[in-house]
């Protein structure tokens, strides 16, 4: 009778962040539907009570169904029969139960049969699903595609494709091709417009597509003949019911084995254009990917939570040298660091979710009425923050999920290497998080802008550093201030050279330095509302301090000419 929501107090804590008051009011347009719709909240408390109750359902299903099925799903996996995907039995059961519970279309407006939940509770549900089964989180999380349809498609398309989420239809995002992975500008799949019937037709191959046999797919395709870059790409909705697409094979993978990763062949598959031509990659996919990266953040935190718990439990039970191994410094240090990383990753997950909530709410309101100056400025501010925090979140949370799972396995000793314990699966499942939706290297490419333009520094100095901190924790802020100074000096040194390859070379270090400071502040600020985080704040900040000092020393001693030593 495990409930993954109620057994983790940290979730309620993050759900209760002070900014939620504003987020909920914006999302609910000041509760204007209260009298009209019986599931619309009447006020802030009512809305929060809804989120809490619904998350309890999610936690129940994740603890008692998804987690119970995870092993058999990993073992059995999906298969392809006559060009169609058949899920493992457990995967199908997970999907059916979550559909019955009304947990698809969570963030969509009620008029499309959604629950109209903000990102924060939706992302929290994603974290819970991931703790239950990291692979299944993909199939569930692809409801993000509906969010993109909601944002950019026509009203008619919205009416047609959005309510299907609540009915259990699944989604896929078809971007990657054999020759277009990190570099999506090289997408080749062809979209041809047929004058006769006024329809678009897709021809070509997609690779590595999660849940590729979904009912509804968003496909990135080259609509402009003769073009070779991102500006020739458009986005299409493909409905499987119309035929023209088959699954050629599914990949045999290291982890997330329950999630079918498909190679798709499109042959004259009819599709509908979303929004405007040529904006496929530069506008719509960017938004889709940002949503999906937030999803991978949640997936990473969920897997990390599961792994941490496995490690902790094993360390308490296993005895060697006459005592529980958790009593050895080498083991308890691992666990304490794992916990601090987990809490830091979760903090930045919900901080980013709040930024996304704020700007998305304003974006949708802007479609209904003109925003006033103040609102426009807020929208811009949060959009910028969301843009730089999303890659930072994905980088840190996915790398931490791997580190936490790795250490949790290490704590299991030889048993960790065996299939008898869930930890080996968690290690395998974690491994994808820093690869798809853009590898960690590509997250750095996206986040470095926040470093070079000074946006991270601005957020640190003008927001986080200004928060009031309890006197007895003041020294933690002093450490963070010192780290910020070192970061600033390193950025100045690296950018002063004026050589882009030099910046690229140090980019990861710089982004990580910013990350240690930001995650440290977030934990420190969380600990003002709740004592439980004070320990992790101190531990994480001291850990970050050592990392930042190391990077600063490396950068300080590094000359432009040293690049040559590294070149292959």
């Amino acid at each position, binding site marked *: 009778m495990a409930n993954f929501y109620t057994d983790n107090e940290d979730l309620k804590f993050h759900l209760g962040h002070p900014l939620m008051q504003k987020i909920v009011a914006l999302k609910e347009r000041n509760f204007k539907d209260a009298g009209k719709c019986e599931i619309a909240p009447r006020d802030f408390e009512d809305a929060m009570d809804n989120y809490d109750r*619904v998350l309890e359902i999610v936690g*129940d299903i994740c603890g008692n169904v998804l987690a119970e099925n995870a092993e058999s799903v990993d073992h059995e996996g999906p298969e392809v029969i006559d060009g169609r995907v058949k899920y493992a039995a457990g995967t199908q059961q997970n999907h059916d139960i979550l559909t*019955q*519970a009304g947990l698809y279309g969570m963030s969509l407006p009620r008029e499309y049969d959604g629950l109209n939940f903000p990102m924060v509770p939706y992302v929290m549900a994603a974290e819970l699903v991931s703790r239950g089964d990291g692979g299944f989180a993909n199939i569930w999380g692809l409801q993000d595609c509906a969010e993109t349809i909601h944002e950019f498609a026509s009203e008619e398309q919205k009416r047609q494709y959005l309510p299907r989420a609540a009915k259990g239809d699944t989604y896929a995002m078809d971007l990657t091709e054999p020759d277009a992975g990190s570099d999506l500008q090289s997408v080749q799949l062809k979209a041809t417009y047929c004058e006769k019937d006024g329809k678009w037709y897709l021809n070509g191959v997609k690779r590595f597509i999660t849940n590729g046999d979904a009912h509804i797919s968003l496909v990135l395709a080259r609509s402009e003949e003769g073009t070779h870059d991102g500006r020739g790409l458009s986005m299409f909705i493909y409905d499987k019911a119309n035929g023209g697409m088959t699954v050629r094979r599914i990949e045999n993978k290291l982890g997330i084995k329950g999630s079918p990763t498909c190679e798709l062949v499109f042959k004259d598959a009819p599709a509908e254009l979303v929004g405007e031509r040529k904006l496929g990659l530069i506008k719509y996919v960017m938004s889709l990917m940002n949503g999906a990266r937030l999803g991978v953040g949640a997936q990473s935190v969920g897997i990390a939570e599961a792994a941490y718990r496995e490690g902790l439990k094993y360390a308490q039970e296993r005895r060697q040298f006459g005592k529980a191994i958790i009593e050895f410094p080498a083991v308890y240090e691992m666990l304490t660091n794992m916990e601090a990383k987990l809490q830091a990753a979760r903090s930045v997950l919900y901080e980013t979710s709040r930024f996304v909530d704020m700007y998305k709410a304003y974006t949708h309101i802007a479609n209904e009425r003109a925003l006033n100056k103040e609102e426009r400025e807020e929208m811009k501010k949060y959009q910028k923050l969301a843009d730089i925090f999303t890659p930072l979140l994905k980088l840190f949370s996915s790398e931490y999920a791997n580190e936490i799972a790795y250490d949790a396995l290490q704590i299991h000793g030889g048993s960790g290497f065996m299939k008898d314990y869930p930890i080996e699966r968690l290690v395998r499942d974690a491994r994808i998080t820093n690869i798809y939706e853009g590898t960690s290297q590509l997250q750095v490419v996206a986040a470095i802008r926040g470093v070079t333009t000074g946006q991270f520094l601005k957020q640190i100095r003008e927001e986080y550093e200004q928060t009031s901190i309890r006197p007895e924790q003041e020294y933690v802020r002093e450490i963070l201030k010192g780290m910020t100074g070192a970061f600033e000096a390193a950025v100045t040194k690296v950018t002063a050279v004026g050589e882009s390859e030099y910046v690229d070379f140090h980019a990861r270090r710089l982004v990580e330095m910013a990350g240690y400071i930001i995650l440290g502040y977030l934990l420190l600020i969380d600990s003002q509302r709740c004592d439980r985080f004070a320990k992790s704040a101190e531990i994480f900040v001291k850990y970050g301090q050592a990392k930042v000092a190391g990077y600063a020393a490396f950068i300080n001693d590094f000359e432009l000419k040293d690049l040559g030593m590294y070149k292959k």
Partner: protein
Amino acid sequence: MKGLKIVVLAKQVPDTRNVGKDAMKADGTVNRAALPAIFNPEDLNALEQALRLKDTIEGTTVHVLTMGPGRAAEIIREAMYRGADGGYLLSDRAFAGSDTLATSYALSCALRNLEYDLIICGRQAIDGDTAQVGPQVAEKLALPQVTYAEDIQKCDGKIVTIKRRLERGIEVVTCPMPCVVTVNGSAAPCRPRNARFVMKYKNAKGTQEAQDANEDYFALVNERPYLKLTEWSVNDIQSNPADLGLSGSPTKVKNIESVVFQAKEAKVLSGTDAELDAMMKELITNHTIG
């Protein structure tokens, strides 16, 4: 075929599955305060069978009938969270101390207030473990009954086809309607609570619960009458007072013993095939396994 009217009998029970040290009081009775009150597990299986009929036969309604204290209205809400249309709480001091006979009598009197094509209940409750209430209700209403049901396979409005799970196999029977069906724990588990239904019905209250409610609740009930759950007292049913509650309960508990399991014996086997074989045979013969 027109929609069916289904009544599910459900009970709120103390969760006796995960009992702690303080589950029993010193006098040998169940310490209800120490155990969380839950939806009797097999009643959830019964509800699922009803909801499946509602899914497939248009116009079908599912209502829950439960007898218990004011807080047992929670059972009706829990059923509505899963798709039931509503329910009735039978609650009065006059019902206190009911054994299975008095309970089935009170329930059958309440059922006379209702129209039904099918009455579905769980096989037995985890607190009393008698499995008597369903069959007794059937007898009192002079209805045919099908016990140990695992799946209601077909229903044409006049005849239901039901798969029964028996000790040594399965049996498929047909039965004229209306009838009483008691559902086994091996039947399909109940569907989860649905997010929309939870948001819609979370403020529903029974009459006794409403006594503690604030103005907001009454304002809301004005707009949404479905938030007022029907509660019946002894005056709302036609019954013979002598057959209710303690006076209607011939069962007398003479003595309750708190049995503490203690494994004292131990056998050490060396692990040869012959030894294991003998052990298996012994365990099967004395019904420890099999």
